[in-house]
């Protein structure tokens, strides 16, 4: 079974803090994704990585950065958390090529106070 794990299910941070969300997959997938899920807005892509150290911006990259130093691990970084970044964050991974399904992690619900 493919497993995508995320470091925390729930996280509470203060405005201005630096926040790291970690994602690990065990299927040797080339692609990894970070999405943000908000009620009524669906899943919105923040960043996408197609290889180690390679990344592409998604639809809402502002306020976020990413790091992929190893193939199995993809980190989302909030340099200075703000209250409007309170959300559910989902990580996903897939083999390369657009016909391959994405496997999602369980999500991290981040609250910024």
């Amino acid at each position, binding site marked *: 079974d493919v497993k995508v794990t995320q470091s925390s299910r729930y996280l509470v941070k203060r405005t201005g803090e630096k926040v790291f969300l970690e994602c690990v997959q065990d299927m040797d997938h080339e692609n990894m994704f970070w999405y943000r899920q908000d009620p*009524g807005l669906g899943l919105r892509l923040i960043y996408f990585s*197609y290889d180690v150290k390679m990344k592409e911006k998604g639809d809402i990259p502002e306020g976020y950065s990413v790091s992929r130093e190893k193939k199995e691990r993809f980190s989302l970084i909030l340099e200075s958390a703000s209250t409007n970044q309170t959300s559910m964050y989902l990580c996903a991974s897939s083999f390369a090529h657009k016909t391959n399904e994405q496997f999602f992690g369980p999500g991290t619900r981040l609250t910024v106070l």
Partner: protein
Amino acid sequence: QQPVQSPQAVILREGEDAVINCSSSKALYSVHWYRQKHGEAPVFLMILLKGGEQKGHEKISASFNEKKQQSSLYLTASQLSYSGTYFCGTGSSYNTDKLIFGTGTRLQVFP
């Protein structure tokens, strides 16, 4: 830029049918369908590709109209386990594996 899904919500009794639509303003190469149950991660259902190829779930069917840039997901003889939120994800470029997901359709099936 997000594909538009309709309806936003559907309520069914077991055994009834439903159709969920996904419409994009961009030319599409692929459409992916996922289902997310409450409190769980989205799970893959099906991929439809330009040219007619499909991969996915045996009990759920879908169509892809390339000219209209639309896809429809057909849920027949619905079961309680079909409840959840359905998302379409559209791929519109040959050069990237990124998908743009719709806002979702919430489906509730009651006994």
